[in-house]
C-alpha cells in the first residue's frame, strides 16, 4: 500500500467519524511533506475527540512509512496546500462558507479601495467660489485671474 492509498483510507474513516470536518489532502513539494488540512479552525484547535483520532493516525503513518513526512494543519498555518489531491466532507465547513458569503462584498470593496486599478477622477473644489461668498465678512480681496491660476496649479 502506498502512503497516499493509506492516507485515503484512513482519512475516509476520519471523515465518516467527523462529518462536520472538512478534510483536504495535498502534497507540499517544497518540503516533501504530505499535508492534511482540517477545517474549520475551531474544530482543529478545540475538538479533543478529533485530536484523539488524527494524532495516532499521524504517528502510525510516520512509523509505517519511515521515509515520508506528514503535517496536520488548519487555516491558521503558514504551510501552503496549493493543490488539493482529494478531500472529504467539502460542504461540512459551513462556518467558513457563511463567513465568506458575508464578508465577500466587504472584502472586495476593501481591496478596491486599498489597491485601486483606475486613477481616481480629479475633483476640483472651487475654493475661491466659497471665498468670494464670504468675502464681505472675511475682508478677503481676490482677483479673478488669481483664482484661475490657483485652480490650474492645484
Amino acid at each position, binding site marked *: 500500500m502506498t502512503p497516499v492509498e493509506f492516507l485515503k483510507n484512513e482519512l475516509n474513516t476520519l471523515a465518516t467519524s467527523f462529518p462536520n470536518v472538512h478534510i483536504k489532502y495535498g502534497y507540499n513539494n517544497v*518540503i516533501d511533506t504530505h499535508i492534511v488540512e482540517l477545517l474549520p479552525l475551531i474544530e482543529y484547535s478545540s475538538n479533543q475527540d478529533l485530536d484523539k483520532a488524527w*494524532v495516532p493516525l499521524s504517528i502510525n503513518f510516520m512509523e509505517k512509512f519511515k*521515509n515520508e513526512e506528514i503535517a496536520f494543519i488548519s487555516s491558521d498555518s503558514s504551510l501552503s496546500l496549493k493543490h488539493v489531491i482529494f478531500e472529504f466532507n467539502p460542504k461540512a465547513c459551513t462556518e467558513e462558507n457563511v463567513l465568506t458569503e458575508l464578508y465577500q462584498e466587504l472584502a472586495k470593496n476593501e481591496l478596491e479601495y486599498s489597491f485601486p486599478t483606475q486613477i481616481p477622477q480629479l475633483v476640483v473644489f472651487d475654493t475661491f467660489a466659497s471665498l468670494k461668498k464670504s468675502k464681505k465678512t472675511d475682508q478677503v480681496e481676490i482677483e479673478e485671474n488669481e483664482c484661475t491660476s490657483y485652480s490650474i496649479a492645484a
Partner: protein
Amino acid sequence: MSELLEKSRQSLLSAKSLVKETYYSSTVNRSYYACFQFILHILFTKIKKDPTEFYNEVQNGKNGTHTWASKLISYELAKKDMIDYKWFQGHVPALKERRVNADYYQSVISQEEGYKAISEAENIINLLVKNFK
C-alpha cells in the same frame, strides 16, 4: 553545555543580528538552524540517542538528518504531551518551508518573514525546553 546547544544559541544570536542588518534570507536560514541544532541537542543529551546510531540510521534510510531528527523528537513528544506534539508537527514543517524558500527559491524574503522565523524558532526551542528538562 553541549556543543550543539552552543551552536544553536549562536545561530539564534546571528539571526537576531542579521535581521537588524536587513539580511532577511540569512535570518531565516540561521533561525531554522538554531531550531534544528537544538533538536539534535535534545536528541543526544536529553533523550540519550546515540549519535553514531543516529547517523547510521540516517545513512541507511532515505531520510535526511533533519527529517529523521524531527521524527524521533516527534515520537517522544507525542508520548509526553499530545497538545505540544500537535503544535510541533505543524510548526516545524512551516519553518522548514520558510527556510527552503529563503535559501533556494527566487522569492524575496521580507523583514516580517525574518522576524517571524526568529519567533518560530524561539517558540519551538521553548516548547522543547518545557518538555525535555
